[in-house]
C-alpha cells in the first residue's frame, strides 16, 4: 500500500491562494486506508477550508468528490465535467493520482493535498510502517521474508553492521534492526544456512536508480495491440 499523509492546512491554503472554485478529490484506495485522502478526510478538509476562508474574508467554493482510485483513467473520465468546472483540483491522492489528473486533463490545474511517503502496511490501527523500496527485484525469500533494503537503514545485504544494539538499529532505539529480525525469523524457520550464502552486489538497474520504469504485459505484446 502507498502510505500518504495529508499536508498541513497552512500549506494547503497557501497553494489555494488565487483560486475561487476548488474541487477536493479524494481517493478510495490507499489514501482512504491511511486516513489521508478518503471520503471522510475530504469532508473534514472541505469543512476546515470553508471555515478558514470565511474567517479570513475570502470567497471560495469547495466541491467534494471521491473516486475509487485516481490512478486509473476510467475513474478519472467519470469526473471530467467536475474537473473542468473547477478552477483547480486539490487531489488527496498519492503522487501517482495527482499526475494522472494532470496528464488526463492537461488544461486543468491540479495541486497535491497529501505527501506520498513510502510503501508499507498498517502495523496497528493508526500506525503505518515501511516495508518495501520497490527495487524491482525482490529477494526476501533469501532473508526470511524481511527486506534488508527497506528495513535496514544501510540497506545491507549480508548481515548486520556493528551498530546494532539489543536488536535495535543505531539510528533510533525505536527502529528494530532488520538483520536481527531476519536472523530471528530464519532461525524460527530452520533456515539459518541461508546466511552462509553471500549475496552479490545488487543490480540496481531495476530500481528507480535505473530511471523511470515501465512494465508491458507479455499478453499485450503478443496480441500486437497498441
Amino acid at each position, binding site marked *: 500500500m502507498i502510505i500518504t499523509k495529508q499536508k498541513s492546512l497552512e500549506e494547503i491554503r497557501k497553494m489555494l491562494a488565487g483560486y475561487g472554485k476548488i474541487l477536493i478529490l479524494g481517493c478510495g484506495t490507499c489514501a482512504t486506508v491511511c486516513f489521508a485522502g478518503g471520503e471522510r478526510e475530504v469532508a473534514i478538509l472541505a*469543512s476546515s477550508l470553508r471555515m478558514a476562508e*470565511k474567517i479570513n474574508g475570502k470567497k471560495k467554493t469547495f466541491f467534494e468528490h471521491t473516486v475509487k482510485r485516481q490512478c486509473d483513467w476510467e475513474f478519472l473520465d467519470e469526473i471530467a465535467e467536475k474537473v473542468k468546472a473547477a478552477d483547480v483540483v486539490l487531489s488527496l491522492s498519492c503522487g501517482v493520482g495527482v499526475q494522472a489528473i494532470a496528464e488526463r486533463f492537461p488544461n486543468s490545474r491540479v495541486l497535491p493535498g497529501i505527501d506520498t511517503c513510502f510503501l508499507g502496511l498498517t502495523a496497528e490501527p493508526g500506525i503505518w510502517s515501511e516495508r518495501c523500496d520497490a527495487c524491482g527485484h525482490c529477494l526476501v525469500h533469501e532473508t526470511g521474508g524481511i527486506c534488508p533494503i527497506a528495513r535496514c537503514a544501510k540497506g545491507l545485504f549480508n548481515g548486520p553492521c556493528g551498530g546494532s544494539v539489543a536488536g535495535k538499529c543505531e539510528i533510533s532505539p525505536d527502529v528494530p534492526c532488520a538483520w536481527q529480525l531476519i536472523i530471528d525469523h530464519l532461525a524460527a524457520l530452520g533456515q539459518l544456512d541461508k546466511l552462509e550464502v553471500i549475496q552479490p552486489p545488487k543490480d540496481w538497474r531495476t530500481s528507480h536508480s535505473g530511471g523511470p520504469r515501465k512494465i508491458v504485459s507479455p499478453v499485450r505484446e503478443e496480441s500486437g495491440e497498441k
Partner: protein
Amino acid sequence: MKNLKPRLVVFSCPWCCFQMADLSGATQLDYSPQVKINIVPCSGRVEIIDLMKTFESGADGVLVLGCLEDKCHHQNGSLTAKRRVSYIKGLLKDIGLGEKRLEMFMLSPSSGPKPEEIIGNMVEQVKGLGSSPIKVKRKT
C-alpha cells in the same frame, strides 16, 4: 460580551448522566433556549465531521459529554471521543476559530460535577470568546 447569548451545542450520552434526557427538555432548568442538547448512544458515536459541521453551521461553542474513561458503557467510546476532540481542537486553532470553543468532559452519574454546572460554565466560556466568526445569518 455580556449580552451575548451564545449558541451552544451539546452532544451527550445518556449513560454519563441519567438526567440528560430531562435536561434536553429544559423544562425545569434555567437554560438559554440557545443551548441545544443532542443525546447520542455513546460519545464515541460523534464523528469528527459531525463536530466540524456543527461549527460550520455557526455554533459558538460545542460541548461533548461522555462517561469516565474506564466506565464507558460501550467500553472505550468516551476515550475515542476524547481523542477526536483533541484532534479537532488543533484543527480549530489552525482554522482561526480557537480551540476553547470545543470542550469535552467525562462524567460519572453518581459523583463529581453535574452536567448543568458544566454546561453553565461552558456558556460563560463561550460568552468570553464572543460570537463565532462563522455565524450564519438566520432568516427572520
